[in-house]
């Protein structure tokens, strides 16, 4: 008994010491000593699932390790719950040194003080970054992230099914597109379009196409603009598209991955990112030969539909003790050579216009390019990121409308929540 008691006390003591040890050892330890200290260090880089193709990662790693003598470790992150993960990571003493941050999220993270000022990187390599894409990473005049890549959605379609329906060419206008979808529905047993009810970035594109805005300023504060007639018009369009789909009205395009549904070969088309084609091929190799892409058509043939210009920036964590090494990584990864390679491999729009030649011959990228010029983003204000936190009220709005609720009423249901989130203090 005594021995057991002693053991128990030891265990309890361990728990106390475990919980109480450490303390706050200061942040000033390990001040970056520049290039001389690089050797033997390991730089950790977080990229999102699907962002960095394996070949690119391998090439960049080789170049980086050769140049600096340090090691490079890529860690691929899942989208699920990423905001909390980044927020907590940025608060830690040993955060990932470099991390990919969505362009719409960047202003919010810049405002938290968790990202390092990259103005010197901008000076070194960013003179010809496309201003429209670099803009999302500027906060209060400082560059808090480097633009990495951009992409917008296209229509990815199954050529075999379209041929079976007797359609000869891809649609140039929205009405033609609807007519083609009708034809597929009538002439084949395929689902004409896979569009789940909560593909909200597609809706954002439609809103941009209508010239609408998601927020408006009221008395010096941003508030929801969801009830705006332009937003309503966009939502009505979405509803019309969704009518061609049997996809669940209360799910988004990632649950399940829409490309894996498409890969089964029973879907005429879906609206997605160019690289989702790779996901489809991975799920079913034989789909590759039937893949085709076209720009989401607009009201008239000369103007494509509005698109959400999604993209990612690379940022350096303020708490990283390897600032100079991290910046060196950015200079290598974003150099013309590797930025061009990324564009080529993933079919994404690079951060410089000069590099767009890399997209030649890439069907998805060529379909995306015409719309990019008229693309837009979500409101680039720090307050915005909170609105998209799960559960995203705009997604609730979409499901409600698709289930038959009047857009105005559905908007009213969620506007209080949106306003609350926009008003959230930082």
């Amino acid at each position, binding site marked *: 008994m005594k021995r057991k008691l002693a053991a128990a006390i030891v265990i309890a003591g361990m728990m106390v010491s475990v*919980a109480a040890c450490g303390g706050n050892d200061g942040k000033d330890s390990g001040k970056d000593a520049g290039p001389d200290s690089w050797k033997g260090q390991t730089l950790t880089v977080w990229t999102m699932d699907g962002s960095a193709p394996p070949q690119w990662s391998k090439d960049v790693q080789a170049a980086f390790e050769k140049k600096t003598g340090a090691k490079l470790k890529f860690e691929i992150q899942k989208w*699920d719950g990423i905001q909390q993960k980044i927020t907590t990571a940025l608060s830690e003493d040993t955060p990932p040194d470099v991390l990919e941050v969505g362009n719409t999220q960047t202003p919010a993270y810049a405002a938290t003080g968790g990202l390092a000022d990259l103005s010197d990187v901008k000076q070194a390599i960013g003179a010809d970054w496309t201003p429209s894409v670099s803009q999302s990473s500027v906060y209060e005049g400082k560059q808090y992230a480097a633009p990495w890549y951009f992409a917008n959605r296209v229509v990815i379609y199954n050529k075999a099914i379209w041929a079976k329906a007797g359609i000869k060419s891809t649609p140039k206008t929205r009405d033609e597109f609807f007519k083609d979808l009708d034809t597929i529905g009538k002439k084949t047993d395929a689902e004409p379009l896979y569009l789940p009810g909560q593909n909200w970035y597609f809706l954002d594109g439609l809103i941009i196409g209508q010239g609408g805005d998601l927020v408006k300023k009221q008395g010096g504060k941003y508030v929801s603009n969801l009830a705006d007639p332009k937003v309503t018009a966009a939502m009505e369009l979405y509803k019309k598209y969704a009518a061609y789909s049997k996809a669940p009205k209360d799910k988004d395009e990632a*649950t399940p*991955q829409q490309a894996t549904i498409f890969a089964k070969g029973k879907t005429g088309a879906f609206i997605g990112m160019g690289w989702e084609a790779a996901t489809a091929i991975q799920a079913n190799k034989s789909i590759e030969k039937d893949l085709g892409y076209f720009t989401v058509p607009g009201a008239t043939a000369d103007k494509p539909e509005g698109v959400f210009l999604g993209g990612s920036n690379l940022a350096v964590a303020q708490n990283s003790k390897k600032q100079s090494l991290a910046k060196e990584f950015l200079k290598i990864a974003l150099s013309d050579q590797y930025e061009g390679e990324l564009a080529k491999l993933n079919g994404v729009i690079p951060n410089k216009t000069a590099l767009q030649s890399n997209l030649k011959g890439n069907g998805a990228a060529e379909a995306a390019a015409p719309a990019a010029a008229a693309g837009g983003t979500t409101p680039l204000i720090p307050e915005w990121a909170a609105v998209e936190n799960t559960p995203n009220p705009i997604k609730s709005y979409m499901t409600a409308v698709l289930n038959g609720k009047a857009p105005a009423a559905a908007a009213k249901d969620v506007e209080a929540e949106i306003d609350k989130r926009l008003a959230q203090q930082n």
Partner: protein
Amino acid sequence: MNRSLIGRIWPGATAVVLFVGFAFPVYWMFATALKPTGDIISENPVWFPTNVTLGHFEKAIHADHFWTLVVNSVTVTVLSVVFSLVIALFAAFALARMRFRGRRGLIVTFMLAQMAPWEVLIIAIYMIVRDNDMLDSLVPLTVFYTMMVLPLTVLTLRGYVAAVPKDLEEAAMVDGCTRTQAFVRVIFPLLAPGLMATSLFGFITAWNEFPLVLILNKDVEKQTLPLWLSQFQTAFGDDWGATMAASSLFALPILILFVFLQRKAVSGLTDGAVKG
């Protein structure tokens, strides 16, 4: 006559219906996992897997770091169950066998501790662990899981200890045993089924814990199986064969443990370890 026939049959019939109701979801999980995809998404359910395939299991195991996660999960679960049993046994012995001031307050304390909603405390725990430089480690997980199951373990074991006849202990002491010896030689063996039964709750809690490990351990090498299962689900939500295979793999150790331990535990219970 007719009535008595019904009277004799209905308990058995009800038992069969209930058995099907309780076992079916578990059966359906394994059955789906073993069926080829064509049989899973068929207009009429295929009730028995005839073309058995292990393809879904292969897909589930294929995930990166799968075996690391298995080792982590087993380590954390077993350690926290053992710790909580040891700590709780002392406490239970005191609460069941001894008189002292503050006893009832302590019992209520453990009842209150049992009420702690851990999921809503994770930010506080995160900040504590972070500020003590213990992130990305299995140690905080183990100690917090220990605490999650400790209160119920104390309360339950207390019942088992109380149910061991005091006379046995005294008889042993008459035979010249010290109290410690009496405990080890007489009480402890009698408690074994109770300890097993009590450990089940701990196993299921620690094995299943999810929000805490998600926020504490960002390093994949230090994560546990629930994260794998939930990520697998998100990625392959539409692939029910693979999802059910992953669920089966996740549930299997606990199912085996329950069937194994429960038999002893229930016999322990019915042998009178529980006194109503």
